[in-house]
């Protein structure tokens, strides 16, 4: 059941209505029933796998929680008589016990993910496992990563274990997030799901506005651009020069409109019920460097990688020691950077693999990791050049240049995940620098499947999007926070007729300009495939 289908809208409306209809204590039951109903309607054959991950994570979590409780109770009871060293020893022995359980749960949870998503074709080819009839479970990467975060947070004693398996099942399967995230953290989401929220008109309007904005980005912008991207990427040998760059540029806009549109729809539904899901985007194309970009793009995944891969690797004793011994050979700076460089590559290879098993995804990770590492290594050199050229690094012009530079790096990198293979991505990248002989550039672009009106619609809608983004960015700079609610709060302050005029205009735009495809079936969300 796609987010953009009429069935889903009816499903969501019934769910929200039922949520407020039942007594407050039972509202989480409505959410669980709706989430499992959604899963069974969307991916019935793979339902068993989400049940399995839920059960394994829940039981393992209870065990880790009991280890934490025992450890805390012992330390509290013997606080006075224990030395600092003894406390450390006791902690180490408790962690050893927990680590075994963490390893077991991760092997089981990620094992299911690996078999069904990554190794299915190899296993089938080797005749070891018949995955022919088996689909990849809906949202498997999202709920597996979310479950792993729960286990890591328990291991770090940051949260208490869930003691109600049905409630935990809701946390794992909450239907707005199952299609394409965000990957929520237990301490941020679970309590919001479990406590019944009382009806507030503001939640309903803000949620509906966010959904409308998501539909606008997905149906009007992303699905329209899809036509152009398909034409170039499916026939890449026919195009060179500017046409390839235009395709990459449009894909960069499409993936953002598609993914952030889907996330807005998900967050909007949740908000209608008073549930605030974590953000996944913070105007990423305004980033000044690639590190900042990954702090603004698919935030829930990049923060997952930061907390559970980057920090543990960068701060590990092993790489710390290795860095210290390298200081003698390569100097202090490189020695200090060494653990960070290793951690960057581990993080970006994971981000690459998260998208799929093909080498093009690993290449995508390596591309991003390498650009960031090169930036770190050459930072003093760049600073020196700026000083020599008397360029003020805090000037608006330099900051503007940084934004354009980062955007260009992102556009080039998009070739890897979108092209059919790593080889195709490389071919397309180099063909960008070959001249398009014969046919004028404009004529080529006008023959990529879109009419002049389509270009006009895309341009106009992107300008609206850009202006709203600038407004939000400005609000974040002045008032702090992420600025994501700034526009909706501004709308609240408008007179009622103006507010309704904007909403109706948005609704009309989606209805009239949305690309609904044959049989009114919108193109599937790109990130649903991950």
């Amino acid at each position, binding site marked *: 059941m796609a987010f953009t289908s009429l069935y889903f809208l009816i499903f969501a409306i019934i769910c929200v209505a039922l949520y407020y209809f039942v007594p407050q204590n039972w509202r989480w039951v409505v959410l669980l029933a709706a989430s499992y109903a959604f899963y069974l309607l969307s991916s019935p054959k793979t339902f068993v796998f989400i049940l399995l991950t839920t059960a394994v994570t829940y039981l393992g979590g209870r065990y880790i929680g009991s280890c934490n409780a025992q450890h805390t109770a012992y330390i509290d009871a013997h606080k006075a008589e224990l030395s600092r060293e003894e406390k450390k020893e006791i902690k180490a022995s408790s962690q050893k016990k927990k680590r075994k359980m963490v390893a077991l749960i991760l092997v089981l949870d990620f094992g299911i993910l690996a078999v069904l998503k990554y190794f299915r074709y190899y296993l089938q080819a080797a005749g070891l496992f018949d995955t022919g009839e088996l689909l990849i479970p809906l949202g498997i990467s999202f709920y597996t990563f979310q479950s792993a975060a729960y286990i890591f947070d328990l291991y770090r004693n*940051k949260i208490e274990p869930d003691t109600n398996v049905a409630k935990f099942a809701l946390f794992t399967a909450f239907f707005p997030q199952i299609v394409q995230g965000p990957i929520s953290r237990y301490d941020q989401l679970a309590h919001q799901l479990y406590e019944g929220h009382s009806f507030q008109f503001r939640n309903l309007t803000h949620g509906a506005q966010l959904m409308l904005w998501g539909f606008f980005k997905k149906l009007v912008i992303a699905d329209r651009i899809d036509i152009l991207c398909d034409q170039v990427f499916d026939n890449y040998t026919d195009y060179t020069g500017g046409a390839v760059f235009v395709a990459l540029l449009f894909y960069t806009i499409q993936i953002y409109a598609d993914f952030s549109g889907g996330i807005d729809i998900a967050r909007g539904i949740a908000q209608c019920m008073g549930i605030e899901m974590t953000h996944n985007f913070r105007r990423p194309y305004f980033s000044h460097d690639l590190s900042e970009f990954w702090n603004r793009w698919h935030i829930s995944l990049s923060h997952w990688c930061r*907390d559970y891969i980057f920090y543990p690797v960068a701060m590990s004793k092993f790489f*710390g020691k290795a860095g210290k011994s390298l200081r003698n050979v390569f100097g202090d700076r490189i020695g200090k950077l060494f653990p*960070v460089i290793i951690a960057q590559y581990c993080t970006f290879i994971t981000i690459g693999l998260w998208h799929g098993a093909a080498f093009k995804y690993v290449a995508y990770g390596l591309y991003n990791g390498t650009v960031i590492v090169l930036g770190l290594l050459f930072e003093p050199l760049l600073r020196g050049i700026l000083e020599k050229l008397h360029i003020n690094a*805090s000037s608006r012009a330099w900051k503007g240049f940084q934004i354009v530079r980062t955007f260009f790096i992102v556009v080039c990198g998009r070739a890897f995940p979108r092209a059919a293979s790593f080889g195709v991505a490389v071919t397309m990248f180099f063909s960008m620098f070959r001249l398009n002989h014969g046919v004028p550039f404009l004529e080529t672009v006008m023959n990529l499947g879109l009419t002049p009106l389509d270009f006009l619609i895309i341009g106009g809608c992107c300008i609206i999007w850009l202006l709203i983004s600038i407004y939000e960015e400005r609000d974040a700079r002045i008032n702090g926070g992420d600025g994501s609610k700034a526009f909706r709060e501004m709308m609240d302050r408008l007179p009622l007729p103006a507010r309704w005029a904007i909403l109706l205009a948005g609704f009309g735009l989606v209805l009239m300009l949305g690309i609904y495809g044959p049989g009114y079936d919108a193109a599937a969300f790109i990130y649903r495939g991950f």
Partner: protein
Amino acid sequence: MRETVLEILTGIRGDVDFENETKLIDDNILASLDIVAIVGEFNDEFDVEISVEDLVPENFNSVDAMVELITRAQE
């Protein structure tokens, strides 16, 4: 200790007003690379072991929170 912490912080990020900022993480002022550098310096300077478990926003949102974290790690 507060003065040393401030010195370390301005050495790593000279462009940030550490004296007045109280949402260094929440407002995305410090990035993960900064945090790793800060923790490395704290561990060396104050002979403590700040671990991954300590890397939560509450411990790094302000200078005072960081001083408190170091004090706890020394106990």
